[in-house]
């Protein structure tokens, strides 16, 4: 299992989603992406993107003025 970080600070939606999505292309089922964002919109958009692609949200929380979202790549990724 690989876990990578995506720094999406100062990016406004939908750019954080795009950064996570583009990173996910290289990843395998079970791998994890930890995204750090400053746009609160990412708290809705990244989970919505995960739902349509069958990925899972492992963690979603506010840390001071930032938002941390951990995504687990779904089993049917690449299908």
């Amino acid at each position, binding site marked *: 299992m690989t876990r990578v970080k995506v720094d999406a600070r*100062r990016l*406004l*939606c*939908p*750019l954080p*989603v*795009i950064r996570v*999505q*583009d990173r996910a292309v290289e990843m395998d089922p079970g791998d994890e992406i930890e995204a750090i964002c400053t*746009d*609160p*919109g990412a708290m*809705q*958009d990244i989970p*919505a*993107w995960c*739902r*349509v*692609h069958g990925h899972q949200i492992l963690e979603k929380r506010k840390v001071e003025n930032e938002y941390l979202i951990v995504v687990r790549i779904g089993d049917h990724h690449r299908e």
Partner: protein
Amino acid sequence: MLAARVILEQGIHVEGINFFTGFCVEGHTHAIRKRDRGRPKRNNSLWTAEQLGIKLHIVDIIEEYKEVLLNPRHGYGANLNPCLDCKIFMVKKAVEWIRNHEFDFIITGEVIGQRPMSQRKDTMPVVAHESGAEDLLLRPLCAKNLPMTKPEREGWVDRERLYDFSGRTRKPQMALAHSFGIEEYAQPAGGCCFLTDEQYSAKLADLWRHLGEKRYEFDDIMLLKVGRHIRPAANYKLIIAREEGEVNFLQGYRKEYPSLKTLSHTGPLALIDGDPSEEQIGQAAAIIARFSKGKMEQRVEVEITSPNGEARILSVKPLSPRELEKEWML
């Protein structure tokens, strides 16, 4: 949304593509402006994909889009919206995408006569041809009014189960949406793109005029979405936050632009874009003071901070409403 649903009904696998030009309204504006926070914060394309149960791919075309907007071969619409070139470009990108991902054809939700520039009967073939999509581009909502495309000829889709909508009325679409059980059918007419907005286009035109050429960076077009823009002289303009959300957003740019803030009275944060003289900095401070709680006072203290963090304080007399020229307001 409807076009995708029509094709899904025929048992065909559909995935969505959403292109992000940098001028899209949703998301950003909601994130920035507090007064918009009551509105749904969702990303409309993701929401639509979820309703349809399809995947959605969001493609960043910010850089490539510059050429489309700066030199549109077919010109602009009512404002700085290069709709026809934009459509051609997006379909062209979709052609690349389907080739790379082994998909067979492209659908779009266009309806003949729905929009004045890009959805006329004579521009439909222009989009198909200039994008290189040719007969791989199917418009399920008005296909019956258009020549047969490959997916129809090959029997991949049943032409009989496509539609013949035309004109500006959305009633048939609403009825079809209703028959599919789609209650919330949001398809704004250009309302999702800042380039169709008159005020935004005026600010973009002003930017180009003062740069002396048509060009932009991503930060430029983001800042045009925020605040009150005032240009007292050709060599500089002020971007003044109108509310707390905009203050927070502009804070993020204080390392790139000199900023102004009233100290003696509550007032907004402002950025200076350009290269004002010392005298003009005094003028900028007087303008900011005008937008502060001290606007009726004799003197207001304004702090000017340069991008490297060096700050100094000026004491100025706020500009009177008469002195704040109408033509300065963008």
